[in-house]
Each structure stands twice: as C-alpha cells, then as structure tokens.
C-alpha cells in the first residue's frame, strides 16, 4: 500500500510532489489523465485553488477525485474566496472524504484573475488558516464550539525565498511554522546557490521544505516571469541556455534544466524534496523525473 504524504515526510526520503490544475468546466478528462499518469510517480499531487484567481473546477473536487483514483492529494486552500465559516466547512468535508493534506495559501489578488469585479474575502490569512486546522484538530471550531467528529490533517504553507525585500517574508514564514505548518513549499527557485543560503536560515525551524520547480518552456517565458511574477528570478545564464536551444527544442532544454536542478537539490541535500509545477505541461513531469534520475 502506498504511503501517506505525512509518512513520506517523516521517513526522511526525498519528497517529490507535482501540481495538477482542475479544468475550466466539468470536462475532467485531461485532469484524470494527468492524475493517472503521475499518481504513482510522485508522493503526492497538489490541486490548485482557482490558480491566479481564475475560476475553475474546485480544488476540493480535484483532491477527492485523486483520492478516489488511489492517489495522495494535497488540497490547496486560499483565503481569497471563502470566509472562516466556508473554510472550516470545506476542511470538515475534505477530512470526511479522506483528503489528509492541506496547503494553506493567502491567494492571488482577485484583480489579476478573470473575475476582476468580484469581492475578495481574506477573512483569514494563511497563518490563521494553519491555526484553524490545528484548532479543528482539537475538536473545536474557531468560535470555540465543540465539533461532533473531528479532523486530522498534514498542514503546510508556502514561502518565497526570492521575495524582495526578504526580511518581512521570513517573519511571515516563521509565523506559519509557529502556527503549525509541517511542510513548506517554496515559490519557484532557479538560483540554487541563493536557495542554499535561504535553506541555511530556514532548516533550523524544523518544517520539511520542498523546493518549487517551475518547468521553463521558453526563454520568453523566463523573461515574462522575471518581469511579471513577484518572487521569481530566473538567472540570465538559464535564460541564455533556453534561448540557445535549437528551434523546437526549448521544452527539452527546460526539462533538462529542471532535471538538473532536482538532481542537485537531492544530491547536495539542499532541501527535503521538490514540488514540480509543470504549468500546462503536466504530462512532462515523468520526463523531468527521468532527467533528474529520481524515482519513488
């Protein structure tokens, strides 16, 4: 029987997770294919929650489907769209359907998404959401009322090692761990020397830390992220490497870079694992793992 994500975290093995985005609509065919392809190649699959504030099939629905297919889901929950009643209710629902892992996020701004006039909520923040999970686990809701049947989760949160400035981000990171985060996924990292410095700071806090890996698909994508995505910095040498790839071979170059980074993170024990975000190219995750020479 496959191990739970928590068991893998506690085993000390190099943890490998990947991301799966539910569809815009109810055609779950592609999502199901990605899950089938990846569920036995990674330790757990993250299901995104209206990523980039774009309305989609819910992360909870995707997580339940992964569970039903015999995979290990990590339910992403943002604080953007639900108040504390709805978040707690969804945690009860998730537990009742066997979803055991939750990644707590603040959530992107509504105004970057596809429903720009919607009301944003942020009734709780990510550290408060982690504490909410720990409170529910004690058998009480946030109002102090007793639950008839409790919950148990492996709770995680995120950090952005390339945030600018970094110091306020690190204080938030520490608050998330104090709140009870057992694992931390990072925003995509590319400069592994810089990431090693971050890890020297972060390791003593005890949470398992998984380095975020976003698959580069072109030099233009790398430049776009540098310009537009806060907390992501692709060094010039990697952009040059992508740009130097022969026509039609950029994706292969990106897979090679991702594989090389994962290999180094594992060999040099830079982190406890990796979280692979092959945005829109989920079917390439096995190729990345092959390039890295890692498997479960």
């Amino acid at each position: 029987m496959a191990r739970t994500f928590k068991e893998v975290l506690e085993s000390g093995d190099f943890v490998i997770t990947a991301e799966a985005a539910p569809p815009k609509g109810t055609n779950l065919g592609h999502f199901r294919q990605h899950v089938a392809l990846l569920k036995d190649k990674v330790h757990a699959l993250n299901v995104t929650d209206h990523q980039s504030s774009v309305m989609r099939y819910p992360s909870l629905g995707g997580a339940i489907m992964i569970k039903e297919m015999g995979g290990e889901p990590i339910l992403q929950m943002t604080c953007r769209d639900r108040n504390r009643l709805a978040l707690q209710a969804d945690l009860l629902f998730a537990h009742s359907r066997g979803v055991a892992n939750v990644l707590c996020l603040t959530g992107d701004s509504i105004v970057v998404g596809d429903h720009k006039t919607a009301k944003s909520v942020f009734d709780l923040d990510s550290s408060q959401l982690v504490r909410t999970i720990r409170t529910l686990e004690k058998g009480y809701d946030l109002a102090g009322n007793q639950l008839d049947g409790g919950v148990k989760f492996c709770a995680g949160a995120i950090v952005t090692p390339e945030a600018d400035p970094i110091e306020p981000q690190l204080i938030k990171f520490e608050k998330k761990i104090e709140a009870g985060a057992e694992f931390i996924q990072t925003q995509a990292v590319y400069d592994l020397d810089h990431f090693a410095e971050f890890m020297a700071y972060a390791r003593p806090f005890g949470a398992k830390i998984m380095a975020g890996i976003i698959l580069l698909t072109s030099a233009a994508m790398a430049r776009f992220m540098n310009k537009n995505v806060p907390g992501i910095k692709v060094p010039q040498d990697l952009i040059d490497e992508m740009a130097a790839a022969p026509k039609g071979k950029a994706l292969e170059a990106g897979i090679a870079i991702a594989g090389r980074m994962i290999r180094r993170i594992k060999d040099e024990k830079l982190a406890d694992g990796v979280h692979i975000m092959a945005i829109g190219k989920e079917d390439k995750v096995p190729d990345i793992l092959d390039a890295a020479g890692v498997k479960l």
Partner: protein
Amino acid sequence: MIRSITQPKLDTALESLLEGYTRLFVVGCGTCVTLTQTGGAPQVAAMRERLLSWGKMVTGSTVVPVACDELSHEILEEHQGAVASAEALVIMTCAFGVQTIAGQFGKMVVPALDTLFIGKESAAGTFLEVCVQCGQCILGETGGICPVTSCHKGLVNGPCGGTKAGKCEIDPNKDCAWTLIYNRLKSFDKLDLMRRYQPPRHHNVEPKPGRFQAPGT
C-alpha cells in the same frame, strides 16, 4: 485633513442615468472635489457645457462650500427657483454630499462622480487611502501604518508572496504595506511586534449600518 476621493463617472454611464430628464441643476462642492478637480467650479462649468451638448437644459448651477454639511438657508433660498424648475440635480460631490443634498432639496439626484475612498494628500495631487474604519485599530502594533487599509489583501500577520521591490503585486505604484511596516518597526527596534500572531479579526465591531450615540446626548 482627510478627504473624500472621487472620480467622474464615464459619460456613457452618466448619459444613461440622465435618460428621461431634460431640465437639470448642477451642484459642485468647494472642498474635497475642488482639490481633486472632480467637482470644483471649472468642472461644474464644463458639466454645464456637456449637458447642453447632450440636448439638456441647465436651469442653474452652484458650488456649495461644504456639501456634506447641512446647507444654509441663504444657499437654499438663492437657488430655490432654478432648483424648483429642474427635474433632477446633477451632483458633482462625493456620496456624502449627494445624500445631504438629496435630503435638503427634496429632488431626484444624479451623482456625476463615484466615491472611491477616504484619503489624505500625500504629495501635491496624490491622495492615499488612510483608514477603512474597521473598528479594531491595529496601528499600535504596526508602527502607525495600517495594513488593514494599505495592504491590498488587508493582511495582518505579514506580507503575502506578492511583494516586488517593495511594491504591491497589483500595481508597481502602490507600496507594499508590510515592507513599510517592517522598515518602520525595524527603525524603532520593535520587530517583535511584527512577530506577534494576530488572531482572526472581528469584522462586525459595529454591524452595518454604523450608528453611534455620543454619551449624554
């Protein structure tokens, strides 16, 4: 001094609100909207021209001193005739002014502006939102900078991952509140305040609509 910050409605929106009205009286204000150049004397004059170009009749116009205060008898009397012959008032003040004037003149009102926020002039012509009247002031723990107002997401336990060079992910012209708070607290050697966990906030300190009775009144 705090100011009510407004912006003009789009012409298409205003024209649609004015459908069915022919005779109009225009009201501006000498306070906030004069500063923001959205409802002062020049804007009221321009509105008269625009209304004429749309085929409306303008029975008169005025720029009252402070539209959110009760208007004096003198003002009401001075414009009584022109207001009486108008079917509606086109009001170029913030929404506080619109409500006051609607009550005092007893006429249908058409707001020409949208009220954005309560702000303070931080540099010539630049206005920043300063307080969202949350009923649970946190400024003592943030060095006097309000994250409930100044953080796009209203976060109270530190920044999200969207800080870019100390600016907010949604607009490079907007400061990241938590970068400002960090720097301020650091300068006072008070970063322990930022490390302190802030529990979920009370969003119903004064349930809407707000009402306050001063003691002994």
